[in-house]
């Protein structure tokens, strides 16, 4: 039987998911992209969490879940959140071969739990096929410790050399730098498949790295007309989570706080002054971690709007 961690309970991933929803809402609200004209494609796992949230956001939107494991598919059938969701029993590669959207806009989330060449190729295939104004998000495992040592570094170079900005380097050791390397590699992948002499471009919107266990990197962007890029950048330029120029990905590392602590902190939010973390720490009156308490509080201040509440409920 396939083992699945409780994806829906993963705090940092939950925040990333809500930021995707916010991104979609922003695009719809500001740019007039009618969600009902989109089809969402994802690898929803057994609980189909993002499908559930999306169906609440826009019940008319068509959705397709891609799942190769038959048992997981059965669990998905059990968790089916709405009628507009179609469950496909296939792998991503086979799905993409037959994917022919014509002018129909898509939202793709390539939510991988590993990192290999095939993931980058899938990303490129999608960028080459989707209609203008489609949103493409990719999540990859970003574990620098997997590539320590000369032999592993060489394997990394052999596998990803074509996408590395400097194909002679060893992959970096720090998570922050490794996330940036993956982002640079995806940027090169986008420039290869949508070179500047074509009139569509992949405009990044957000990018994050986080760990709920394994370290992950995630990038969201929109395939738009080059002439429209400036407008899209303008829509997002004042949003604190936006990453419109392939800059350093932002870190999501939200602390686990009790409901009581959160309700207490709520009274002090948002903090407009500097030293947000220290101010919230003072408001709480104690440290929640020996060394990184202020940073964690800053993380809370940044992302608290997306922080899910987990409560005991009667079925």
């Amino acid at each position: 039987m396939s083992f699945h961690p409780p994806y829906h309970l993963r705090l940092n991933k939950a925040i990333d998911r809500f930021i995707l929803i916010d991104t979609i809402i922003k695009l719809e609200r500001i740019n007039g992209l009618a969600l009902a004209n989109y089809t969402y494609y994802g690898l929803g796992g057994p609980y189909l969490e993002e499908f559930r949230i999306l169906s609440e956001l826009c019940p008319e939107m068509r959705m397709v879940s891609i799942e190769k494991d038959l048992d997981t598919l059965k669990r998905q059938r059990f968790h089916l959140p709405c009628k507009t969701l179609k469950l496909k029993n296939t792998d991503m590669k086979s799905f993409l071969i037959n994917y022919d959207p014509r002018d129909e806009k898509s939202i793709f989330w390539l939510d991988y739990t590993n990192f290999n060449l095939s993931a980058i190729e899938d990303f490129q295939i999608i960028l080459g096929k989707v209609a203008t104004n489609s949103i493409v998000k990719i999540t990859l495992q970003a574990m620098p410790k997997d590539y320590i040592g000369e032999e592993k570094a060489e394997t990394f170079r052999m596998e990803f050399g074509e996408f590395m900005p400097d194909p002679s380097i060893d992959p970096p050791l720090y998570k922050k730098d490794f996330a940036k390397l993956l982002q640079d590699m995806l940027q090169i992948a986008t420039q290869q498949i949508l070179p500047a002499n074509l009139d569509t471009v992949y405009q990044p919107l957000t990018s994050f790295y986080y760990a709920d266990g394994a370290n992950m990197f995630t990038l969201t962007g929109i395939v738009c007309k080059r002439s429209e890029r400036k407008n899209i950048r303008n829509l997002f330029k004042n949003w604190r989570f936006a990453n419109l120029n392939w800059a350093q990905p932002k870190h999501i590392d939200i602390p686990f706080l009790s409901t009581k602590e959160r309700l207490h902190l709520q009274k002090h939010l948002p903090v407009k002054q500097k030293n947000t973390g220290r101010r919230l720490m003072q408001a709480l009156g104690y440290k929640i971690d020996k060394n990184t308490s202020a940073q964690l509080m800053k993380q809370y201040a940044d992302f608290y709007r997306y922080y899910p509440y987990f409560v005991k409920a009667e079925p």
Partner: protein
Amino acid sequence: MKSTDQIQYESVDASPVKSFFVLMLTRDISLEDAILDLLDNCVDGILRSKIKQRGAKPYKGYKAEIEFNKHTFMIRDNCGGIPWNLHDYAFRMGPASGRPTVTPGTVGIYGIGLKRAIFKMGRDCLISTQNGEHRYEVEIKPEWIDDDETENAWKIPVKPAKRSMKEDGTTIVIGDLYPGIAVRFNEDIKSFQSELYRMVATHYAYIIDKGFEVVINGDSVQPRPTRLIFSSDKKTPNVQPFVFKTKTEDGVEVFLTVGFTRPIPSQDEINSEQVEKRYSTHDAGWTILCNDRAVLYCDRTELTGWGEAGVPRYHTQFIAISGVVEFRGDASKLPTTTTKRGIDASSQLYLQVKNKMREGMQIFTNYTNKWKGQADEAKKHILRGKPLSIEEIKEETEKLTFTTTKQTALPGKQYKPLLPLPKKLESQQRRISFTKNIDDIKNVSDYLFQDETVDPSVVGEKCFDLILNEARK
């Protein structure tokens, strides 16, 4: 209409139109190759000035810096500059007669590389050069390109350079970039720079390894030269490369070596590569060097003998086999194409050398096939050796006994290694492979190793070993 007897038949104008050169010359060369052409000119400068040093790092201290952005492209070197006595040839289209003898070791013979690279990128160019006491600038303006009418249409004005350079060298700045080029230097800069970096790291690997430095937008390029496994173990058989060397009647020196860069792949590695591409880059295949510069890199086609005359077609199982052929001599005698990034497959010299390439390659394809299914055992032999650069192989093989190959069309000397073969040529082992449901494999893996992620082949082998122990009781 005039009648024919009224027409004065005069000469017709058959002079070339500049825009023809600009359009046609640049069409069959990629931007990356055009930039490599400019790098070739830098290295030719070193050789021409005869300032190349001796030893393992003869190019040490020489450097080419490349910088580009959406407005300009610049390449600056300290490689000796363009001598004033060459000015009439350096800027002519094609190899003008009367040109001083080609310096041995250079690769430029067609006289188009510089111009083609400039016209590939833009319509405005300033070349500043300093060679000894001569310092001058040549400027090509868009108006010059458009001018086909005036008497001096093909003349380019030269003026003395305003400033002196610290060292003799040349700086080329190209502006008024074509829109298609400007976007690659701007919006696509990340992918273009990565591609150019990789091409320089591979095609210039041998020169950089010998001390030359290439800097692209501030990053110094690290070379990726081929290194072949060489075992110094006196006991034979052992893993060493095949070597062939010769000097032709017209003075071209040839050094050819082929061998293993790594252990031969396991069956699992081969199988997984068959299902989906696993590596975006790998170093298997043939690299051909002409005067230190790679004109072909890791080729795995019939062009280099794969799939011809007894050599199998390239396949993942041969991922460990790599070879290098070095041609050195007068550029006009070398088997290159005009773009300098290709082999003239019909060259008689190359066809003769290709025979030797196939002969060497067969030793290693045969070894790979003989050890098929026993990659772990073969790995032990390969790991006994050390990966050596081509220069190191030349040095090491000096100590070995070469045989003379007079009977072949291309006489020379060769060293044929004796590679270890399995004890019995007919392997006593047979491969067992079967497929099972992934959940069942995880289940057995968890049962045997308390870990459901163990490689399926390990799980299968463990099952067999357990039953074998039972059967032997």
